[in-house]
């Protein structure tokens, strides 16, 4: 039977199930299929901190959202068009996020009294669907009830697996069904399963069979009448792959080693959501990368500082709680002026906070979280793939200016993924470590090495590594005399050194490109926007998507995004001054806004959300649109920017 094929420009799908149901894998595979198909996409994995919370409970629900489109998109989407729910808890936990008219595909197998109780349902929400009256929990949705587990077990019975093992392949059945619905290519997933389960042929064959059966079910059943087509997106020419932030960051660190000729030395202590970087780098010993899993966070950064002193590119990776522990050692690196990369994959705080959720609330910790005047440059990536470039940039600054550099990623970037245009190595910056090899003060018999005699342009001190004859010297946490570097308690010298360390970091701005301001209402610098929206880090996607909504509604807004949080680019003050209003969306209570107000006396308007999730484009668009309207004196209903009432219109708008 031939089915109707509908064209869509974009879809948001959320796979949700128990932590043990393999939803992250399912989402990953669907993402890879979509990437290879050529759609633009963004993903949002969302999982509990507990490895295996009690099965069937709300606490154990794990989900993976993927937004894919035939055009350039910026976020993983606000609200799913399609929810795949593998049990009652997954349904209940996610139903509230769905817009009216959304499609829900439910595995009915686990809708037993016991599992309904665990999920907190007093009545089965799948009962009397046919004549669902208003007020029925499923009344607003297009619901498909399918016994995914039962059909999976039936399909794989020839492999003689236990019932439990057979049922575990249900995620591949679901993947097969969704792959049919959206016309995804299937070869990649089959090859993936063949490789992943190569050592257990029964499991391998069961998973591949479940996947194919899911596809065939979609094609033959009358329950699914429509297949959807989302054409490939137009993208800049080049070779692409799908990549997560943590992987891109790891590759960026390997690339920094290659491009500087320095061995990379990672000292790290496992912590969510940063551990993936430790795992990944431990695989790349062939690039001369050393990874030390230290006894604690402090030892991790300590070993990295030692390695930097010895001539490696010292790196430490962690999340906010780890930064708190490393603070004193980062101060030592400030004082000794050694290159060091400090990677903070931010998560919800304070304290242990929300380990698996995202937040941007470590900015002020990165900026000020040390004793004394201890300036540290801060770099932030804006998308998963951008983590690669940001890591290289952080390494450039650290090596050139002999300073620790803080790189602020976050949980959303770390685990989220997007298509990434793979750069040519020849296009990457080359970083010169410029080791000191000769004495730099005095002549003849009086020739000496002065470890704090600075480069006039950068104010960086020379980096002389052990093994270099004649340059033996001592550094440390005590204040050093300018130039000769001996311990100095002289008041005037301390004042000079404090100002010099600050000036050195400020001078990094000399090496930064001008900010790019996006305002399509006019040529560069002559746009009509009166409102500027300024962000940093992973809010780039939601901010861009919100700007598109506002512009599509006919209003003007300018956007710029900061990669460098310290120092700010030279032209930031002048840009801020051009606009009547500046909005600063952040996943914190206004940390960048505080810095902007303090630095530029600008009345930054915050848009702040700290719920552990990325900002929703629709929410931000409403706030931004309202500010634009106020600023321009327009009387409007802010609802024009906010959530529409029917799916699938709740998508971020295509650019115009």
């Amino acid at each position: 039977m031939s089915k109707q094929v509908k064209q869509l420009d974009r879809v948001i799908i959320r796979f949700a199930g128990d932590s043990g149901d393999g939803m992250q894998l399912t989402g990953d595979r669907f993402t890879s299929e979509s990437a290879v198909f050529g759609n633009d996409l963004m993903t949002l994995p969302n999982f509990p901190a507990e490895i295996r919370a009690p099965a069937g409970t709300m606490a154990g629900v794990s989900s993976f959202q993927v937004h894919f489109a035939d055009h350039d998109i910026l976020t993983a989407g606000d609200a799913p068009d399609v929810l795949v729910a593998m049990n009652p808890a997954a349904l209940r936990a996610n139903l509230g996020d769905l817009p009216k008219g959304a499609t829900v595909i439910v595995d009915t197998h686990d809708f037993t009294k016991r599992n309904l109780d665990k999920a907190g349902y007093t009545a089965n929400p799948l009962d009397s669907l046919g004549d669902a009256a208003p007020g029925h929990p499923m009344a607003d949705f297009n619901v498909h009830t399918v016994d995914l587990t039962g059909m999976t077990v039936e399909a794989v019975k020839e492999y003689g697996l236990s019932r439990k093992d057979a049922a575990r392949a249900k995620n591949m059945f679901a993947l097969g069904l969704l792959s049919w619905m959206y016309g995804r290519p299937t070869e990649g997933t089959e090859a993936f399963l063949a490789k992943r389960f190569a050592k257990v042929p029964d499991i391998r064959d069961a998973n591949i069979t479940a996947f194919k059966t899911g596809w065939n079910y979609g094609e033959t059943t009358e329950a699914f009448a429509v297949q959807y087509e989302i054409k490939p997106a137009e993208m800049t020419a080049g070779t692409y792959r799908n990549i997560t932030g943590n992987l891109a960051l790891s590759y960026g660190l390997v690339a920094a080693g290659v491009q500087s000729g320095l061995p990379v030395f990672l000292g790290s202590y496992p912590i969510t959501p940063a551990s993936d970087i430790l795992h990944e780098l431990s695989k790349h010993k062939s690039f001369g990368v050393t990874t030390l899993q230290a006894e604690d966070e402090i030892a991790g950064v300590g070993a990295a500082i030692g390695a930097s002193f010895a001539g490696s590119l010292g790196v430490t990776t962690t999340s906010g709680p780890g930064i708190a522990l490393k603070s004193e050692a980062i101060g030592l690196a400030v004082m000794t002026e050694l290159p060091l990369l400090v990677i903070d994959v931010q998560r919800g705080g304070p304290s242990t906070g929300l380990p698996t959720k995202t937040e941007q609330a470590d900015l002020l910790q990165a900026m000020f979280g040390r004793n004394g005047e201890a300036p540290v440059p801060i770099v932030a990536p804006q998308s998963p793939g951008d983590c690669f470039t940001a890591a290289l940039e952080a390494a450039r600054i650290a090596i050139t200016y002999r300073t620790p550099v803080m790189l602020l990623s976050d949980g959303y970037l770390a685990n989220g993924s997007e298509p990434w245009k793979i750069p040519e190595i020849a296009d990457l910056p080359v970083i010169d470590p410029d080791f000191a090899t000769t004495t730099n003060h005095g002549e003849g018999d009086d020739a000496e090495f002065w470890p704090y005699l600075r480069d006039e342009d950068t104010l960086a001190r020379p980096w002389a590594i052990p093994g270099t004859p004649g340059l033996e010297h001592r550094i440390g946490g005590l204040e050093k005399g300018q130039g000769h570097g001996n311990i100095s308690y002289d008041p005037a010298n301390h004042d000079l050194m404090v100002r010099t360390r600050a000036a050195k970091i400020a001078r990094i701005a000399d090496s930064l490109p001008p900010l790019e301001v996006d305002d399509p209402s006019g040529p560069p610098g002559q746009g009509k926007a009166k409102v500027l929206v300024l962000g940093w880090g992973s809010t780039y996607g939601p901010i861009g998507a919100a700007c598109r909504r506002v512009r599509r509604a006919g209003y003007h807004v300018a956007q710029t995004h900061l990669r460098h949080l310290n120092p700010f680019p030279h032209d930031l003050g002048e840009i801020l001054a051009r606009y009547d209003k500046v909005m600063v969306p952040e996943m914190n209570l206004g940390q960048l806004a505080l810095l902007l107000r303090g630095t530029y006396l600008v009345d930054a308007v915050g848009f702040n959300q700290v719920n552990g999730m990325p900002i929703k484009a629709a929410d931000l668009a409403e706030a931004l649109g309202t500010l634009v309207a106020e600023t321009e004196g327009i009387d409007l209903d802010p609802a024009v920017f906010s959530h529409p009432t029917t799916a699938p219109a709740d998508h971020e708008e295509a650019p115009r």
Partner: protein
Amino acid sequence: MSTTTDLGVPALRSGTESVPTLDAGAPAQTGKEFTSDQEVRWCPGCGDYAVLKAVQSFLPDLGLRRENIVFVSGIGCSSRFPYYLDTYGMHSIHGRAPSIATGIATAREDLNVWVVTGDGDALSIGGNHLIHALRRNVNMTILLFNNRIYGLTKGQYSPTSEAGKITKSTPMGSLDHPFNPVSLALGAEASFVARTIDSDRKHLTSVLAAAAAHRGTSLVEIYQNCPIFNDGAFDAIKDRDTKDNALIPLVHGQPVTYGVPDADNNPTKGVIRDPSTGGVKAVDLADLHGEDGDHQTALDQLIVHDAHNPDPSTAFAISRLTDSGYLNTSPIGIFRQVQRPTYDDQARAQIRSSQDAAPGTPTDRLTTLINGTDTWTVV
């Protein structure tokens, strides 16, 4: 050239074998070459002076290139040490020197790495790093200056102070039970553990030589007098009148004996196994002589010190002969020296074998790496 005592421990794979040595025919180094131009600022009479002098005199014995020697310290009086040596050095932060030295030693096979620390730095704020350095067996030598007090912060009790000690922070006596650094290190399965005394240049130098020659983490506890805040803490083991009965010298392969010599110049005390506790105990040899009064009969019953015993139990038992209160008895010498693979050698071996197995230039391999296996091309 310093004089040394034979501690009876043969060298295994050398701790300095991958460090560049002086060119053949180059003039021998002097202690003066290792002395920096910085004014030494410890209190008059501080035991640190003696240790500094001993180290400065000893370093030329290694015959290593000076630029390949690195001293790392934490915080405390003793941690100023690197400033006074004309080598590479880092005076770091409180307790963290072992972690920094771990990074240096792992990153560079060609460096001879030393850590200088104190009882507060190594055993209190940095206790975690110390035990993990010992466990990993990173190739470096840790000199732990133990004066059983906090000096730089002006006289609080330390983690090696005797219980009940009256100090500025414990006017009614400290409540903490002290650590025995040697017992702690043996418990962490350190591969080299020794104890020596600031004022015994000969013994100190011998221990330094053995520690430097050891491949792995060498922990050397140095009893060091603080004349300002804990003067006299080691008098019993230093005074001519009492030291023979207070110090139990350990010599590999020899029965453990000590005590004021008798008329035949034989030792009068020794250490035997104590079946009642499973440990060891000190006894008067006269009690072991038997009816014929034969000294050899007594010696035959003593423990023969075996620093190479892979099982640290006996070494630990011997370390328990150290007084935890005022120091009236203490074994000194090399408690344990066993060879086991070092963390840094193995880390470098993993990297080398991975590099040997990897074809192509780093740039080519980087291209392959970042491309991965699932790519698509947009034209």
